């Protein structure tokens, strides 16, 4: 197919591969039940959202004292799917008269009366939101209070962090932020925003809404990239521990951050959605396969491995923000008619790029070298006379020359004009190289500042 890289598409995880190769059936059974998975997590001392009460059947429903419910809570179906059937209330509404029934306020300012609430619970018990439509349990949980960092992004609902863990190693992460359209749900397919997270440092990268890139939150206009997620290491650790607790090979762990209690596991999901790949601009399958043989000793080593292998999205982000590409001290380049790439040293101390005589000969500039060697190059060059000497020589001989000031003093060198291609990037420029007469140069090709305007130099690379 035109414009499609087979290599890149191989790294993507599709529905077929997810369902057949990665979904862990045992984990599905546990993660389908919020009550069961929460119990498991609690046994491993992993913080989870607190359960206030459960209603298992009609008998319990009839005996339930609704006046014991707190001012704010979340009502969930135990075996719900994709966030459907969840009701959040923020506070109790003041009664106008004694006869009036209890009612609560929902995030969108709608009123949830006790009758409506009871009907919803009956719907839950009836299995209307349940994965397999069988009878279900209603679950009251404490409402998690949104941290200020997140509350500026969304007007309603609770943003959460989804970490995909494979073989107890965090593979990919995203922050899911509800919108008005998603009705406060963080699920991407309901219209929530997904923001990729760099595993290495917990900083958000690119954001998507319904599979398309966005820059700002649709409701609040807040920029979504470059946000540092608090408790990042703790979040990674909790997600690894959850995967150990559930004994799952492949698991999506949803974590919310409570204003008072810090990160809490909201739920675990054995069939995590695939849009996270778009948010992170990277394929899951490639990442899954790259750790398929790694055995980890403890959560700390898992975190180290994950950061080492999957960190570094931020470089691409810098590239997007500044339009500049990060390069290291050594780069692979193609000069003029070279057929195989050669290694060059990036030297921000030099202004013009240079090549050794050998390379110049390889490139077919023998003639220029020959002509240059015929010239009597003046000795005793210094800052006072170098420019004058350069002009003199240029007038005398029809050669392109340049005066150079280097660590060894001043010199005049021949100059060639040709193309310079940075392999690994798309950058090709037309530029000049001086030919250095020293054949003992440690690096036969040196790239100077003049040709580095498209790049940022990372000296650790």
């Amino acid at each position, binding site marked *: 197919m035109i414009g499609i890289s087979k290599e890149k598409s191989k790294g993507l995880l599709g*529905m077929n591969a997810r369902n057949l190769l990665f979904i862990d059936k045992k984990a599905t059974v546990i993660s389908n039940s919020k009550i069961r998975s929460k119990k498991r997590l609690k046994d491993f001392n992993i913080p989870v959202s607190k359960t206030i009460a459960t209603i298992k059947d009609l008998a319990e429903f009839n005996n339930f004292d609704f006046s014991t419910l707190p001012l704010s809570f979340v009502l969930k179906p135990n075996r719900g799917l994709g966030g459907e059937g969840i009701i959040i209330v923020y506070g109790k509404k003041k009664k106008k008269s004694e006869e009036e029934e209890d009612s609560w306020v929902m995030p969108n300012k709608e009123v949830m*009366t006790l009758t409506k609430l009871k009907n919803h619970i009956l719907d839950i018990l009836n299995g209307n939101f349940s994965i397999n439509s069988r009878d279900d349990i209603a679950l009251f949980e404490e409402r998690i209070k949104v941290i200020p960092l997140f509350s500026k992004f969304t007007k309603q609902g609770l943003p959460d962090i989804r970490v995909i863990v494979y073989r107890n190693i965090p593979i990919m992460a995203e922050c899911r932020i509800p919108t008005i359209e998603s009705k406060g749900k963080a699920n991407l397919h309901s219209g929530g925003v997904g923001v990729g997270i760099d595993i290495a440092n917990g900083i958000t990268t690119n954001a998507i809404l319904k599979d398309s890139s966005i820059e700002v939150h649709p409701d609040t206009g807040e920029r979504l990239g470059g946000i540092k997620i608090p408790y990042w290491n703790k979040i990674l650790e909790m997600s690894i521990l959850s995967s150990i607790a559930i004994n799952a090979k492949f698991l999506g762990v949803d974590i919310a951050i409570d204003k008072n209690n810090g990160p809490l596991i909201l739920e675990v999901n054995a069939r995590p959605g695939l849009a996270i790949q778009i948010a992170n601009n990277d394929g899951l399958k490639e990442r899954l396969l790259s750790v398929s043989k790694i055995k980890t000793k403890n959560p700390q080593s898992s975190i180290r491995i994950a950061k080492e292998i999957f960190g570094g999205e931020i470089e691409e982000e810098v590239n997007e923000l500044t339009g500049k590409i990060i390069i290291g001290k050594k780069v692979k380049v193609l000069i003029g008619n070279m057929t195989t790439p050669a290694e060059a040293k990036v030297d921000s101390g030099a202004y013009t790029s240079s090549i050794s005589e050998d390379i110049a000969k390889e490139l077919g500039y023998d003639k220029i070298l020959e002509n240059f060697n015929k010239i009597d190059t003046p000795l005793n060059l210094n800052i006072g006379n170098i420019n004058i000497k350069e002009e003199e020589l240029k007038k005398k001989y029809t050669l392109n020359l340049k005066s150079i000031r280097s660590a060894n003093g001043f010199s005049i060198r021949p100059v060639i004009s040709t193309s310079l291609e940075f392999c690994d990037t798309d950058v090709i420029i037309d530029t000049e190289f001086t030919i250095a007469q020293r054949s003992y140069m440690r690096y036969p090709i040196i790239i100077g500042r003049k040709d580095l305007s498209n790049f940022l130099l990372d000296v650790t690379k």
Partner: protein
Amino acid sequence: MGQLSLFLIQSGINQNALYILLAIPVIALFIVFIRQIIGFETFNLYITVVSILAFFATGLLYGIFFVLYILIFEIILRYLIKNFTLHHTAKEALTISFISFAIIASLYSAHALFNYHHEVSIYAILILMLLGESLATIKIKKGERHGNYIYIQTIIIGLLIYIMIGSSDFRTIILKYPILSLIAIIFDLYIGRVTSLKLTEYFRFRKLIKD
């Protein structure tokens, strides 16, 4: 006609029934292909297959007419009862009742607009109800828009299969080579193990796989 088909028909099996039964594995394979390789979403296989049979009972044009009526009525109904507090079963009852009305209304309009005098069989009505009910259920699980989307895709794929089943060439081939039904099963086993991206996923992830 193939020997096996001939033998079965001579043993008293109705030719039409035999044709449909032999065609079903091939149709099922077609749906598996559409879902796993192309990546369209449909209702479950059974409903997709029977929805096609509804078209045979009503005729193609009216079939489309009826299913669109059901879709529109279902959307109106959802809008009407959105703010009602009702048990789910009661909502289901309302849905089914509304679909009945939808079918009456569509029959009436078919008569009035196109002078349609076809006798609509009880089976067609049952199947149309099943479609309406599935639509309502899928919307609870997957949301309003996604539900409509799946419904329309099911109908479009149903139409393709309708054209397939209605073709006399297809009928001849199926009855002549009943072995095709067995071959279809082998392909099911093959497609059932495919782990590549679906075509729709190539589109969905197009930004990630650009050269």
